[in-house]
């Protein structure tokens, strides 16, 4: 068939596909938030798109003019964007993730969880014990100005976290915690791309930093203000950092030991798993920031209550990850 006949025969379907694409691209279907193909005038879209794909293959095979091939190529490219768009039911999927998908996912990474957990808690614990007995060691991690500011903040009777703190300040601190902590979580995750070394660094560094602060404050005898403050949100915050570490190590491990896959393919698959961990991590950091800003800092609640609630929160987190979503694959 010569090109002119071919064009004459199919021109009509090309034009109606172009028309549909204009409608789709103007975002009409999207804005109205209706299922794409339920629109009466768009019902033919998939059939028409496949027809044009067929025409393009024919045009290429028959070596029709580049102009025609290019024209069909553009129609197919645009159609491809719309036919293969992912349509997700976000709310249902979030609920499903929180209600069991996330804990099941974490349990499936138990080995890496153990490693990240040890790396976040052990070095800091050892340094805290060392500093408790040899306080000058605090200067290996903090400079004198930081030491002075922590000392002032957690001095018994300090106004920084005392009853004097109003709700305005609480909200400001919420912003500070969100920005700072989730940033740390993201960096710990992203560092996994450097063969896991970045993740290792952030875990150990944060561990030592927190260990230094805790050790020095308990040496000063400020433990009675520091620990009631830290215990509540710590359940979410510290374990969220551990899970960021798991997400990072997952990618690093894929690069170091890709198994039967190519390194690039292993990395892509690991990143898909990791990013779901990161979603959960963001949620945990948000909860932690809320607790830290509005509960931990409250000066009117007696320490005993804070210890009790804090212990409850730790058990809640443990129960969540151990018990939920047992009946599903990660």
């Amino acid at each position, binding site marked *: 068939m010569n090109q002119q006949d071919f064009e004459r025969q199919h021109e009509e379907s090309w034009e109606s596909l172009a028309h549909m694409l204009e409608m789709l691209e103007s975002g009409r279907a999207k804005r109205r938030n209706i299922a794409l193909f339920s629109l009466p005038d768009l019902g033919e879209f998939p059939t028409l798109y496949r027809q044009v*794909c067929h025409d393009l293959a024919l045009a290429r095979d028959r070596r029709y*003019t580049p102009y025609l091939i290019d024209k069909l190529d553009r129609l197919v490219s645009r159609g*491809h964007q719309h036919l293969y768009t992912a349509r997700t039911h976000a709310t249902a999927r979030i609920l499903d993730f929180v209600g069991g998908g996330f804990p099941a996912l974490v349990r499936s990474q138990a080995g890496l969880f153990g490693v990240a957990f040890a790396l976040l808690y052990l070095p800091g614990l050892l340094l805290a014990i060392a500093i408790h007995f040899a306080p000058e060691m605090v200067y290996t991690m903090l400079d004198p100005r930081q030491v002075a500011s922590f000392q002032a903040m957690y001095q018994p009777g300090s106004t920084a976290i005392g009853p004097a703190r109003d709700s305005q300040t609480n909200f400001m601190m*919420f*912003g*500070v915690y969100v920005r700072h902590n989730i940033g740390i979580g*993201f960096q710990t995750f992203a560092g996994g791309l450097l063969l896991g070394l*970045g993740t290792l660094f952030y875990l150990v560094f944060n561990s030592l930093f927190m260990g230094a602060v805790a050790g020095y404050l308990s040496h000063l005898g400020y433990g009675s203000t520091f620990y009631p403050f830290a215990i509540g949100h710590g359940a979410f915050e510290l374990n969220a950092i551990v899970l960021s570490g798991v997400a990072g190590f997952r990618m690093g491990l894929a690069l170091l030991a890709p198994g039967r896959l190519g390194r690039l393919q292993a990395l*892509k698959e690991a990143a898909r798993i990791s990013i779901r961990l990161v979603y959960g991590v963001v949620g945990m950091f948000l909860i932690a920031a809320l607790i830290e800003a509005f509960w931990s800092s409250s000066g009117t609640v007696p320490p005993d209550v804070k210890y009790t609630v804090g212990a409850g929160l730790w058990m809640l987190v443990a129960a969540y990850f151990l018990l939920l979503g047992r009946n599903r694959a990660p």
Partner: protein
Amino acid sequence: MLHSCPIPSSSHSTARARLSKIEPFVLDGYSTVETPEGVELKLRAAGPVARALAWTIDLLIRGVLYLFLGVLPAVLGKAGLGLWLISIFLGEWFYPALFEVYADGRTPGKRALGIRAVKDDGTPIDWPTAMIRNLLRAVDFLPFLYGFGLCAMLLRQDFKRLGDLAAGSRVIYADEGPTLPVVPRAPGRAPLQPLELDEQWAVTEFAARSEKLSAERAEELADLARSVTGCTGAAGVSRLIEMANWLLGYR
């Protein structure tokens, strides 16, 4: 230069050999993906310069945005400062992802540069892909100003940074480029001898481009096909255009 149309001589076998040698050219930076329908799509990778410019535009937009949101602390006091910090956090980590998912893979900067982020198979970006490629930006940015990202891009033909590698995404040109020229209309005329597919293709390609060539160059090229046209010079050019029309079906 002769402008006459003598009967073709014996040299047509060499001319045919020359015409058949023309092969489809390959351009760097193009990659093809196959759709489930079995057709191949061309994707044109966007390079470091276009992407850096797009990033700079986005940076400026975010900067101006933060500046305007700076009224929050002024009006709402410390609570406003909290809101401001949260908006900076959202802006720094989620601004690109949000646009990539909801605005066809294009942040305002990418839109200005005519580029877009897509998945490896050319389909629109979804949430996991957008989140992976944008959170891993932190590593591409190391040791300073996208050092690692630039190295990764320069080592690859498809200009992927590390985040793109892990996410399975790529940045391509979204604009479709100039339209290709059409064969100028002329009364159709059959070639003096049957042409093979490659040769037909060469004739129509030449006809489509003839108007963009200088007259001298067009004649020079047309002379190569004198065994087919039986002419040289300007007459050969117009003969080829007529033949192209005939081949396309205008008879």
